[in-house]
């Protein structure tokens, strides 16, 4: 990878020499057997956007949990000063943190979907007049707040009808309504499409003009360079470095994060695609809840044995719907065909799809991929119990042997297979999901955003795995929100726009600009 793609915005104001708003002073946090933070000292200056990066388990979330009171004052060593005062949060008192002026916008949004934007923003502090809520004032105040920060959301819209991007704006507005001086954004772009990311960046710059300080946590390193003033890298619970963004590069960041030179972010591959296995022709499909609305409006592509077809597209372009439709778990196919090895398929549900040799690693591993309260073993074997069933009984020895083989091959890090999935890191969870779908011995593996929210090291392992699988002749469809990844891993790239395949590019002719042009419908 060369440096061309890194955007260094020379016009962005440099880190202001303002006073220190948040000061971690020799903070150490220990768990039985593990030191999560070692003697961390870190200063955030007022008015800056401060990026924090590090692999999963580096200590980012521990830092955040101290700021939100999940690890209350007294359970860690050292001091945390906010605006010069020591922060003494009680157990799980996110309320106290808010009152102090610290607001956290989580990866998983915490809005009530069934009520309006305004109600959400003023939830728990509604303007009351003689015991009744003053709705006019509530919506007027909401509008005022939204105008001030240039947030484009209708105050009376129901949150469930908004896109993820606008939901996030609502969440930010809610934090601002609490008079937050420090806003912490935890993986804010993981669910956003590229255009929405741009929008978010604009909002963050507006906030900065208003003097709000931001801590920006992300796995997408490029983002740091378009928005942050300085970056802190954590590794193994230590602060490795804090530097002004303009002195850093993606390569340097990766180097600091993993502690080794990572010359290649994508492993080398020598793929030799074979004959065509999957043929999708002019596929149309309707929204399952609203059968008159077409979500897929004509998608055609072919997929060869041992090939990776990348699918790029903005949120709402129909990427995920395409995957689910092929897998038989979305709306009705209204037109078009799906052929596997020349045979036209009529897939009614996931069981059918599996029988035909299709597997799907779903986009949202926690909601669709895993039974989090169950063990690694039970999760891996779930779709494959038919393999181990003798008449009615599940042969648990065979189940364990096969599951263990996959767990070893994918290097799932856990002391044993009875560990519950909710205790695993994102990368390991994803490996469990992939294991369970590989065990069914697919001919075609559809991966919907397989590296979403996982760290650089685990990403690299998943990329290597993809190469191993193609070498075994498995055909892979890889949907991704990250253009880099699509470009780094695919043999061909299909770009989707508004439910259609806007174009299929050979990797040799694909560039970020070209893909974006197709995805946004300009090309």
């Amino acid at each position, binding site marked *: 990878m060369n440096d061309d793609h890194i955007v260094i915005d020379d016009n962005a104001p440099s880190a202001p020499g303002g006073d220190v708003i948040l000061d971690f002073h020799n903070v150490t946090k220990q768990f039985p057997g593990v030191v999560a933070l070692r003697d961390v000292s870190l200063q955030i200056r007022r008015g800056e956007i401060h990026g924090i990066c590090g692999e999963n388990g580096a200590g980012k979330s521990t830092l955040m949990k101290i700021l939100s009171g999940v690890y209350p004052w007294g359970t860690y060593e050292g001091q945390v000063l906010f605006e010069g005062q020591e922060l003494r949060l009680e157990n799980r008192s996110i309320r106290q943190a808010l009152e102090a002026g610290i607001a956290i916008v989580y990866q998983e949004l915490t809005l009530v979907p069934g009520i309006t934007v305004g109600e959400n923003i003023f939830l728990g502090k509604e303007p009351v007049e003689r015991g009744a809520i003053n709705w006019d004032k509530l919506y007027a105040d909401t509008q005022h707040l939204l105008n001030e920060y240039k947030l484009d959301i209708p105050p009376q819209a129901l949150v469930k009808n908004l896109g993820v991007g606008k939901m996030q704006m609502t969440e930010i507005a809610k934090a601002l309504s609490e008079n937050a001086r420090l806003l912490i954004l935890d993986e804010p772009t993981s669910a956003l499409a590229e255009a929405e990311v741009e929008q978010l960046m604009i909002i963050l710059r507006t906030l900065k003009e208003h003097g709000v300080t931001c801590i920006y946590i992300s796995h997408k390193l490029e983002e740091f360079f378009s928005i942050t003033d300085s970056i802190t890298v954590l590794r193994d619970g230590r602060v490795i470095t804090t530097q002004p963004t303009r002195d850093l590069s993606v390569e340097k960041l990766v180097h600091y994060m993993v502690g080794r030179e990572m010359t290649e972010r994508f492993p080398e591959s020598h793929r030799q695609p074979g004959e065509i296995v999957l043929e999708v022709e002019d596929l149309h499909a309707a929204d399952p809840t609203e059968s008159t609305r077409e979500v897929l409006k004509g998608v055609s592509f072919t997929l060869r044995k041992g090939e990776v077809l990348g699918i790029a597209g903005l949120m709402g372009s129909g990427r995920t719907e395409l995957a689910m439709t092929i897998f038989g*778990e979305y709306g009705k196919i209204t037109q078009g065909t799906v052929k596997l090895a020349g045979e036209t398929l009529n897939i009614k549900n996931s069981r059918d799809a599996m029988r035909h040799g299709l597997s799907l690693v779903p986009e949202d591993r926690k909601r669709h991929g895993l039974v989090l309260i169950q063990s690694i073993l039970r999760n891996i074997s779930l779709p494959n119990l038919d393999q181990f069933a003798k008449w009615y009984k599940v042969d648990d*020895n065979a189940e364990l042997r096969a599951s263990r083989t996959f767990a070893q091959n994918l290097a*799932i890090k856990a002391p044993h*297979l*009875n560990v519950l999935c909710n205790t695993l890191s994102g990368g390991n969870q994803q490996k469990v999901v992939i294991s369970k779908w590989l065990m069914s011995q697919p001919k075609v593996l559809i991966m919907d955003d397989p590296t979403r929210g996982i760290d650089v090291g685990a990403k690299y392992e998943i990329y290597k795995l993809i190469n191993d699988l193609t070498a075994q002749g498995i055909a892979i469809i890889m949907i991704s929100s990250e253009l880099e990844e699509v470009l780094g891993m695919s043999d061909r790239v299909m770009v989707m726009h508004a439910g259609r395949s806007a174009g299929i590019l050979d990797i040799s002719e694909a560039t970020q600009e070209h893909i974006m042009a197709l995805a946004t419908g300009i090309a």
Partner: protein
Amino acid sequence: MSTISKNGSVQNTVSNLTKQFRANIQTYAIIVAMVAIWIIFTITTGGSYASAQNVSNLFRQMTVTSFLAVGMVLVIVTGGIDLSVGKAAGFVSVVVAHFQAYIWPDMLPGQEWLTTILSVLIGLTVGILIGTFQGYIISYLRVPAFIVTLGGLWMFNGGILIVTQGRTIPANQPLFSWIGQGYLRPTHGWIVAVGVVALLFYTMFNNRQKKRRYGFELSPLYVDVLKTAFYAVLIAAYVAVVNSFNGVSIPVLLLATAAVVMAYVSNNTRFGRYAYAIGGNREAARLSGVNINKNIFGIFVVMGFLCGVSGIVLASYVGFGTTAAGHGYELDAIASCILGGTSTLGGEGTVFGAMIGALIMASLTNGLQILNVPSSWQYVVKGIVLILAVYTDVYFKKNR
């Protein structure tokens, strides 16, 4: 943390009971609570609580609602609920009593064996039909289980009144009464005990052999032997105690069979595994190829079957079909599951735990009765125990 090794510490084929035991830390706590309750009552009743007669009664008293709890575990595990089971069992009991009292004597006079068998078959059929009916509406027509079974509760209550016409129906032919009131002769009791213990040891050795064939690491032989011996001693102790009174009670034997079968089904069959996956994450289960409708339908059919068993034992045990048959049993069954660690959110719970929960409920009722505590206060105590037990669990989970 280490990567999974070939000789990882995963113990797979431990015997069924220990697997259940281990599955839930809460189970340990609840067993301790049960023993504590027994000790307290033994002291406060001056020892009569622990007499052979009372132990025998205690286990027999728990059977009717425990059949319902055995089925309820899987219903709650999938994230559902069945409010109709008490009245469904009551309905089965009055139908069976009706046949015993009014139909068979005219149709098949003097055919005691045949009429008893037919009564049982009718009871089971009615139960299965109830389960099929409710299960179909819940799974395929997608009406929430809470509503369907609430409606069922009223319908079966009405059914009870229609069948009995407000009167009590006698059901006391000797052979039929044996189902709910009978005892094994002491020698037969020992034969069953020896058979079960032999089966336990056979299963243990068989499992070890299979594991060896797969090349898995075995736990030391003495550990497995000691574990199995522990259960053998429990069984022997129970048989010895009840034999000094009347012998092993038939309904207890039936209940033990139902519980062991359902525990096995929940752990070792696809049907059971899918139930836990559905309760743990319905969407993930669906995308993993689990046929959710079919599974939930099946669970309600099984629940209906167990309502049938429960109703037959109820009619036989009481000797009558009454208008109040089965009243409130659904709440006892649900409480037993919850006490035994079944999560109301679904995905977690064991048959073994539910049986311990049922035993606690029965132990409380029985002990308070011996102490002559008025039934009004028995309810209050049971209510407090249920809430306290769940709070303890919540507290420990939060502060783990």
